[in-house]
């Protein structure tokens, strides 16, 4: 059924330019774009661009996730710190990451750091907020039980707080992974860091519109794949958690 829908969409895309409803120069038929996409699969330059994009994505995700997790646990486990930082976090979080583009350009130019600055800034908040909620969600009874059994702070962190916060953390990471990809591609598109986004900008300004559509399809595929992989990791990591267990049972 879903395949039929996808096919239907492709057919519409094929028919619109072929019948001349939309100018075929600006919207080449689906078959041309897909053929070009498959041609890309055989090109080193294409994989180079994909590799660049994924490398920026991975590095940005790693930095953001580690920083946000450490800070999240630190801030979350102290009521004082949580209240102390709350206003600042709430103020910094809605600041759109793309506002930093000019700054990134000034500081780093087209080096990978400028993309990283945007990616890290955008995905950091996603993870941090989730970790904060997760740490706040710790069951008081479980915490007190652990305390009366003489578990030290580190053991409590490992066996009580961490398992409670892990589902939240994973949700944050999944959200951040999508945001990070968007920012990676955007940085390449606007700033010109090497990667798929830069290729799209090149194809567009060079007038090779078929290539542009093929690359856009590629970014979509990349997004789908990242989403699937993230869901898989989430399921693996949380296989013990009741939300995943009931899902399997039904």
């Amino acid at each position: 059924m879903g395949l039929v829908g996808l096919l239907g969409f492709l057919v519409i895309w094929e028919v619109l330019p072929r019948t001349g409803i939309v100018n075929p120069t600006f919207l080449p038929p689906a078959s041309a774009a897909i053929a070009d996409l498959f041609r890309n699969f055989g090109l080193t330059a294409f994989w180079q661009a994909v590799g660049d994009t994924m490398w920026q994505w991975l590095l940005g995700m790693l930095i953001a996730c580690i920083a946000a997790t450490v800070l999240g646990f630190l801030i979350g486990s102290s009521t004082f710190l949580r209240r102390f930082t709350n206003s600042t976090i709430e103020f910094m979080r809605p600041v759109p990451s793309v506002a930093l583009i000019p700054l990134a350009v000034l500081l780093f130019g087209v080096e990978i750091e400028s993309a990283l600055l945007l990616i890290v800034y955008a995905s950091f908040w996603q993870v941090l907020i989730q970790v904060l909620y997760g740490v706040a969600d710790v069951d008081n009874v479980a915490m007190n039980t652990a305390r009366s059994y003489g578990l030290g702070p580190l053991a409590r962190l490992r066996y009580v707080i961490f398992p409670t916060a892990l589902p939240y953390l994973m949700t944050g990471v999944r959200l951040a992974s999508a945001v990070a990809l968007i920012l990676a591609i955007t940085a390449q598109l606007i700033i010109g860091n090497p990667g798929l986004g830069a290729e799209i900008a090149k194809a567009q300004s060079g007038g090779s519109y078929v290539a542009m559509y093929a690359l856009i399809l590629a970014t979509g595929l990349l997004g789908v794949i990242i989403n699937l992989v993230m869901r898989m990791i989430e399921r693996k990591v949380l296989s013990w958690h009741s939300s995943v267990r009931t899902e399997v049972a039904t």
Partner: protein
Amino acid sequence: MSADAPLATPVNLTKAAGGSGTSRSAPPSSPAKKPPGAKRAWGAAKGLFFIAALPVILVLIWYISTAVGEKNFFVPTPALLVETFFETWTGDRITTDVIPSLTRLLFGIAGSIIIGIVGGLLIGSVRWLRALTEPTLEFFRAIPPTVLIPVLMLLIGIGDDMKVAVIISGALWPILLNTIEGVRSMDEVLADTTHTYGIKGFNRVRYLILPSAMPQIMAGIRQSLSIALILMVISEMFAASSGLGFTIVQFQRSFAIPEMWSGIVLLGIIGVIMSFIFQLIERNVLRWYHGLREIENAA
């Protein structure tokens, strides 16, 4: 705090730390022997401290690191930034850049909310339509919205409608998919009851489907707002002769560093105001829902 933590939206968090003098903001361990008036004042002072302390410290660090010692080319001092901010954004630029940008943003958000909710209700209530469109929609959601800017530039041109279309094309998906999800996860008993009472058509949408999907829809809108703001800026950076994104890039290219920073600050303020307005609206729209959750959690 732990009781409503899963729902601990920024609304609750700000309320908890906001310390507007209500008893909610006073921590349970606060001294109980003081008279209520003094207690409230103490609570308010404490709340104020928690709101202002860290920002003040950060600004101090910023001030010390820029004003003391040699001048930093990339980072202006706080005083200079404030001065430039008012100089840059209070004159003609309000009408030539800020207002057009915000108008596009508003149209984009309104468009994606309307299309998203109407489309979502439709797709969500018709089973075969959902099965038919789901993978296609997932694919569209996965495409980073910014890559559609070149496409829409080709198809529509570089006018205002292109920017609105860009915003809609990116901000639509969270609302659409969340509405579908919300309609699907409707309470079975409620649905059956309405069916038994013969409530059909518009009334069914108005009194059953829309309310039960509302929490999800609001969550979608929240995501969409930040996407919309990002896309507004990006579309103006890409192709425009006016607007905030355009102006900020212009400042950066001409190395007008304090002006550039003031633009970044302005975008930040717009983002903060948007999320604030949204929280107000959400609190009103979902008042019944938060109340329900509180009762359920208390039980």
